[in-house]
C-alpha cells in the first residue's frame, strides 16, 4: 500500500510545488494521474519513486515509513518500483538488451534468467531485431518501448509511468496498456501520469487529478477534467 499524508515539497527556498497531498493507492490498484501542465505531476512521481524526500508530511510505501528510512535502506524499496520516465533516461552506451537487463542485474539475478526474460520481453515489444542496437540509433517509439520494458522486467510491485504512450502509435500504445493491465492483474499497483483523455476513457481506471500542487477533491475533478479537455 502506498500512502501520502499531508505531503509537501519545495525545491530549495522556492514555493511549495506540492501542498498537503494525501491519498492512498491500494495494492493491485490502477490509477491515472492527470492534471494540467505544471500541476506537479512529475514532482509527485519523483516523490513516489524516491527520487526526493518530501519537505513535510508522511509517505508510507509497502508498509514502511519512507521518511524514517536511511539511505541504504531505500534501495530495497526502489527495487520494488518500476519507473517509465517521460524522457526515457536510457543509458546511451548500453544496447537495448543491456538497458532492459539492468534492473535484473542490479537485483543480482542469474545471467540465464536475465537472458531469457529480456529476450522474451523485447521480442514481445517488437524489438527482437534491435537487441544489440544502441538507443541513439533507434526511433523515439522504440526507445520508449525499451524504457517500458526496463520498468516492467522485474515485475515490480509498483509501476510508475510518466506519459508512457506519448511517442507510440495507437496499436503499440494499446499493446503496452494491455501489458500494464496484465501486470496489474498479477498484483502490480500501477500509476500512469498522462494527458491522454482517450486513453483514460478507454481504460476506465481511477484518476488522481492534480492541479496547482494539490490533489483535487471529487467536486472539483469534473471542472479540472473539462479544463484539461480545453472546454474553457
Amino acid at each position: 500500500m502506498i500512502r501520502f499524508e499531508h505531503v509537501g515539497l519545495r525545491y530549495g527556498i522556492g514555493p511549495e510545488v506540492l501542498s498537503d497531498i494525501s491519498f492512498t493507492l491500494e495494492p493491485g490498484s490502477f490509477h491515472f494521474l492527470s492534471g494540467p501542465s505544471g500541476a506537479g505531476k512529475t514532482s509527485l512521481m519523483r516523490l513516489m519513486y524516491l527520487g526526493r524526500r518530501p519537505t513535510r508530511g508522511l509517505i508510507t510505501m509497502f508498509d514502511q515509513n519512507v521518511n524514517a528510512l536511511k539511505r541504504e535502506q531505500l534501495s530495497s524499496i526502489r527495487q520494488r518500483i518500476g519507473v517509465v520516465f517521460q524522457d526515457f533516461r536510457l543509458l546511451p552506451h548500453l544496447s537495448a538488451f543491456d538497458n532492459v537487463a539492468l534492473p535484473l542485474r542490479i537485483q543480482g539475478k542469474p545471467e540465464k534468467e536475465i537472458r531469457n526474460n529480456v529476450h522474451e520481453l523485447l521480442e514481445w515489444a517488437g524489438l527482437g531485431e534491435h537487441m544489440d542496437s544502441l538507443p541513439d540509433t533507434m526511433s523515439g517509439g522504440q526507445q520508449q518501448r525499451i524504457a517500458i520494458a526496463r520498468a516492467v522486467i522485474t515485475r515490480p510491485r509498483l509501476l510508475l509511468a510518466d506519459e508512457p504512450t506519448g511517442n507510440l502509435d495507437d496499436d503499440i500504445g494499446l499493446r503496452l496498456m494491455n501489458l500494464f493491465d496484465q501486470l496489474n492483474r498479477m498484483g502490480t499497483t500501477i500509476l500512469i501520469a498522462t494527458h491522454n483523455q482517450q486513453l483514460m476513457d478507454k481504460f476506465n481506471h481511477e484518476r488522481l487529478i492534480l492541479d496547482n500542487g494539490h490533489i483535487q477533491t471529487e467536486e472539483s475533478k469534473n471542472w479540472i477534467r473539462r479544463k484539461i479537455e480545453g472546454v474553457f
Partner: protein
Amino acid sequence: MGFFGEDKTLGITRQKRRYDLPLNRSAGANFLTLLIALMTFLALLALSASFALSAMTERWSAGLENRVTIEIPAETKNGTLLSREEVHALTNRVNSFLENHPTVKTTHILTDNEIGELVKPWLGEDMLLDKIPLPGLISMEIQDKEETTLDALQRKIQGFAPHARIDSHETWLKDLLRFTGALQFASALLTIVIGLITATAIAGAVRARLAVHHEEVQLLHLMGASDNYISRQFQRHSRILAFEGSVIGAAAGMLALLAIGWSAGEMEINLLPNFHLSHIQIATLALLPFIAALIATFTARKTVFHTLARMP
C-alpha cells in the same frame, strides 16, 4: 522461465559483462594509467635504493661484529719511518701476544697484498706497494667488544709497541649507519608519498567521473542499485587501470634497475657492495602492481561512498 512464464531457451550466450557506466570510455583513463606507471616506476626505484642501503648496512655491520683491527704504523710519533722488516717484526710480536690472550678468539696478520687491496679504492690499481710505507695490520676477533676490554688490551700492547692503535671501527660505523639509516628513512618516506599521490590522483579521477556520470549514477540508484553496487563498478575500473599502469611502471623500473646494476658493475666501485637484489626483494617489487591495485580499489570505494552519501 521467461518473462511471461513460458520456459524458453533463446540461444545466444552473453558472457561478456559490461560496465553499467561508461567508465572504460573515458579519455582521462590513459592519463591516469600513465600517472600510475610513473609513480610505480619511482616507487620501485625508491624501494630498490632502500634495499641496497639495507644490504650495505648489513654487510658492514656483520663484517665488523666483534672484530677489531690493530694498526702498527710505519711511522713513529717523532716522524721516524720504520723499515718494512721492523714493522713486520713488531707486528709478529703483537700477534704472538694476542694469540695467547684469553679474550682474543682469532687473529690474522694482513699481508702486503691484502693491505694493497684495502687501499686500492683510494690510491688506484697501479700503485707501487714497494714505494709506500705500509703499516702492519692485524685483524682479530674477540670475545666481547666492551670498551674496558679494548682499553686494557691497548695498554698492554702499547707496553712493547707504543705506536700501536686498536681500531674498533665503532666511530665511523656509527656515523655510517646513521647516514644510511637516514637515507633508508627518506626512501621509505618517498615511497609513502608516492602512494599518497597515487591515491589522491585516483580519488580525483573517481570524483570527476562521478560528476560526469551523475545522471547515470542517479538512474542506477532509482532502479535500486546500492552504493556498494555502484562502487564496485568504479573499484573494478580503478583496479584495472592501476594494475595496467603499475605493471608498465614496474617493468620499466626493472629495466632501469638492470641498467643501474650494469653501469655500477662497469664502474667497479670497490667501497660499495655489488648491486643485486635477493629473491625476496624481487618478489616484494613484483608485488607493487598488486599493491597499486589494492590502493586503487580502496581509494575508489572510499571516494564513491563519500560522494554518494550526499545523494538522496
